[in-house]
């Protein structure tokens, strides 16, 4: 009986190969959305988990889009990483829960993802929170 190591497993990830049809299709969709945004400011979002990606496609897409100037980390119900790719207006958002499991994997075409902006409901609590922290500091120093 041959061992597991004798099975000639070939890993399918074609790192460094030319982009596959699926990656090019997504890139084309991103281009359409960018043009639409430039025309009438309409943001768009692509849910990567709704697409049939072959092994290696995800990494190929990431390599194709590259990294830009902005990257942010969000700590809300678990960590999320948000960064602008090398293509201005194309943002990549990865949401994870408190157990670091993947919740959502999105590409957004916009000038700034909504989730980065402060929400008005939270802003309304701002003054109250500031006062509470001032009183807290005062109580400590006394």
């Amino acid at each position, binding site marked *: 009986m041959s061992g597991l190591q004798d099975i000639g497993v070939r890993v399918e990830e074609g790192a460094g190969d030319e982009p596959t049809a699926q990656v090019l299709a997504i890139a084309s969709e991103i281009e359409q959305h960018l043009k639409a945004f430039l025309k009438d400011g309409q943001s768009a979002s*692509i849910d990567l*988990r709704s697409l049939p990606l072959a092994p290696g496609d995800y990494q190929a897409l990431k390599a194709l889009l590259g990294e830009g100037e902005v990257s942010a980390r969000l700590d809300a119900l678990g960590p999320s990483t948000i960064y602008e790719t090398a293509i201005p207006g194309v943002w990549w958002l990865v949401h994870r*829960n408190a157990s670091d499991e993947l919740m959502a994997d999105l590409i957004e075409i916009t000038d700034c993802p909504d989730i980065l902006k402060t929400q008005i409901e939270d802003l309304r609590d701002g003054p109250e929170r500031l006062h509470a922290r001032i009183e807290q500091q005062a109580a400590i120093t006394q």
Partner: protein
Amino acid sequence: MAELETLGEQLRRQGISRRSFLKFCAATASLMALPPGMVGAVAAALEKARRPSVIWLSFQECTGCTESLTRSHSPTIESLIFGAISLDYHHTLQAASGHAAEAAREQAMHDADGKYLLLVDGSIPLGEGGAYSTIAGITNLQMLEDTAKGAAAIVAVGSCAAFGGLPHADPNPTGAVAVSDIITDKPIINVSGCPPIPTVITGVLAHYLTFGSIPPLDELGRPLMFFGDSIHDRCYRRPFYDKGLFAKTFDDEGARDGWCLYELGCKGPTTHNACATVKWNEGTSFPIESGHPCLGCSEPDFWDAGSFYNPVPAPIGDTAKWAAPAVVAGAAVGVAAGLYGRKRKADAQARREPLTVKDMEDKS
């Protein structure tokens, strides 16, 4: 017991920021396979959603569907049980047992009459008066009929509850049937699969939680958002099928190069499920990607559709079993008929009375 405050009020009470809520909504929208543009609609709906009471009945099943559900991370099973829904009865997951458990079920049914969500996994055996599967001395059939009366909707989780599944396979010794064969007056969502993908189960629940309604269903009662496409139509190996590049055995060159598994018995063309896009184990892979042909486990009677390793076009069962007797029968009947024909011809020739010109002249 179900809470009276909405999900939005509950989250604010727990000090969760609006931004966190939006992240939760984005995750939920993705889970429900909704386009990301609908996150706003999801947020508006979840704001107003109230925690429904959920009763989970396990009948003639292998517990694979519960196992699958507990692998769901999105939302986590804990957040589901304690946060978004009120899971008032579940054999495997609940702490209570015996009479206390049955009492909890009856209490939940009473408190949320007409409004609770009933989840069922496992088929319902009808043979021997239902004696093949009972809980606390009550047959599955009786328990289903009683509990379904006050349910707002029923979700049949897994192929057993949706279509009869494995117990329903030929010769079906326990007389197993699906939920929809017994309950005909309540909306039923069939979440089939053996088991269903974890996030498909929670995605359907999330839809009901968010919008309070049944998602659009196909002719077999399965949510179109997860069962609308066939595996074949979303399979990443489709280019190989289209080019006619098939793996012939499990370890040949074609198999190693990731060619199409159609000749090895893949039921992808006739199977509807989300495996090719949502995938398994948090999006890691799915059977075809691992090199194994699709079994067709989310379709009715997939156990009786011929071998898992015979392709879709191949006949079901052994052809020789009926062809050989047919040849023998044909030969027997054919020879008999042929010989009978020859005999009739010989008799006709023997009976032949030749008519000569002289005979005709004599008569006239």
